[in-house]
């Protein structure tokens, strides 16, 4: 297998650094969080103080602990939904690009249909009928977001198929399984990795958005749900409470999405230096 060389650039370093930070927070959540995020540890709506650096929410749970545990929810959904999206996209795109013919025609029609449909209303419809939960959220995101990956992978596989060494391997009797594993897969690896990071960014945004709309897991301590509960308190925006209740989860969601976007941009730049903006 060809070794993938990766030159670190600004975007990549910035993105990966932030991602590592979020990952550490998520993994070490029990060590870092001052309280159990589900426990009622103070008076409702307590203001920030030495015991509760970011105060407490409307039922008396520590906001800082909620925030720290929220990283787990976001990263778990991002990882599972993105893996599903890219696996499905690579499978469909790879099969379509490699075999061509009616399979290609059919799957690309399906891609067209899914890419034109308004995704959020469809996601809301699915969530309304399938119920809210981490598994449902990750599955529906994967089912709706694979077409972008499939399109990219298909184009690449189609181009690879015409390469001399691939045609030679097939001429010497290499079956589709052998050729795909030995020659095609290593070539589309970087592409799939970039798609994975992009899909993870979308998944974070979608998960937080669904939670904000009340379609997430109501028991999970996610950032989107924190924003939803904060906004439910009437008059929140008129006091200064938004500073420690609304701003931190919003900033966390944004930073995580930006970290994934920067990593994606960095990967693209590291692998295709020629594509750099003029």
């Amino acid at each position, binding site marked *: 297998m060809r070794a993938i060389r990766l030159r670190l650039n600004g975007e990549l370093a910035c993105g990966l650094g932030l991602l590592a930070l979020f990952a550490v927070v998520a993994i070490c959540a029990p060590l870092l969080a001052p309280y159990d995020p589900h426990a009622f540890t103070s008076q409702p709506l307590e203001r920030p103080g030495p015991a509760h650096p970011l105060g407490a929410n409307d039922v008396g749970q520590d906001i800082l602990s909620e925030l720290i545990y929220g990283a787990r929810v976001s990263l778990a959904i991002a990882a599972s939904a993105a893996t599903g999206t890219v696996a499905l996209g690579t499978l469909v795109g790879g099969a379509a690009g490699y075999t061509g013919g009616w399979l290609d025609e059919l799957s690309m*029609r399906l891609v*067209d*249909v899914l890419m*034109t*449909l*308004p*995704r*959020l*209303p*469809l996601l*809301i*419809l*699915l*969530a*309304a*009928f*399938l119920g809210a939960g981490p598994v449902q959220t990750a599955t529906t995101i994967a089912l709706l977001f694979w077409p972008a990956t499939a399109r990219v992978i298909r184009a690449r596989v189609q181009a690879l198929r015409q390469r001399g060494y691939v045609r030679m391997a097939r001429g010497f009797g290499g079956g589709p399984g052998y050729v795909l594993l030995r020659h095609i897969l290593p070539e589309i690896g970087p592409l799939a990795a970039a798609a994975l990071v992009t899909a993870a*960014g979308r998944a974070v*945004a979608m998960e*937080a*958005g669904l939670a*904000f*709309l*009340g*379609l997430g897991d109501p028991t999970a301590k996610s950032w989107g749900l924190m*924003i939803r509960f904060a*906004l439910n308190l009437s008059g929140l*925006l*008129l006091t200064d409470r*938004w500073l420690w209740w*609304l701003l931190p989860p*919003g900033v966390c*969601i*944004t930073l995580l*999405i*930006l970290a994934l*976007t920067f990593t994606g*941009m960095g990967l693209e730049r590291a692998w295709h230096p020629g594509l750099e*903006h*003029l």
Partner: protein
Amino acid sequence: MMLRQVSRHLPQRLAGYLLTLWIVLTVNFLLPRLLPGDPLAALLDPQNSDYVFDAEVRATLEAYYGLDRPLPEQYARYLTGAVTGDLGRSIRLNQPVGELIASHLPWTLLLTLTALGLASLLGVWGGAAAAWKRGSFTDRALAAASVVIGNTPVYFVGMMLLILFGARLRWLPLAGGRTPFAHYDTLPAAVADVGKHLLLPALTLALAMVGAKFLLVRNSMVGVLGENFMLVARAKGLSAGRLKWAHALRNAILPFVAHLAAHASMAITGAVFIETLFSYPGMGRLIFEAVGARDYPVIQGVFLVVSMVVLTANLLADVLNARLDPRLREA
């Protein structure tokens, strides 16, 4: 290049959109009926927590879904209903879904079209200006700002604007599409009130979309500026303004128009969040409230109509594309 090839065949595109519409209708029909747990039957089952107590509403629900009939007959009835505008009755409001949508759709169209216009103007103008001075500090700052703002959740941007202009400075109203119970004596007064309520939501949605438009126009313009015909135009001694706007932008705008269809879908996504945040009386707010009340006919109706709006926008973008780019009209 691929986009251009595709839009060469408008009739083929139209057939594709009709196929998509049929798939939307079928998904809408099958989804609640094939799922385990039978969410529709739950509405009519006295043992279930979702049971609808109002006998009149229950009767209309039973008549609309017709769950006791064979599946093909239900499907035929559903399709005829959808074609004639019968989308069922809202469980929560006991009102025809068609009527509800008719009263909410104009608000969403007002919001999304205003935001699209605003974002397009800013994106095209900023993108062209940045490409003209490519590599400058302004160019880099605008590109970085576009990435950041494009990746910030739209409801978070909306909240910050709401806190600043609504709660702190008190320049603009916090929520709604117009002042409740307001009675307007003159048309300008009505327009001013609606405009005042529209400003923040539209600005938020425009901000969410402007980054992508800016980057698209900027990069396409940078490509055009390097073309030979630009060198010739410059050699003819044309003014900078004519070079930039009449020669370069005219060509650089084509990919932007080609992406307009994708922007329609983006605008709808943004509108759902923004209408929820600002309590704006559009389709997004309608579907949000329907989700909370498990009002299935409304959720399905909104999904169908929003899909139709997006498909129409796609078709319009194809036609506009063919008109703007003479190369697409041949063949």
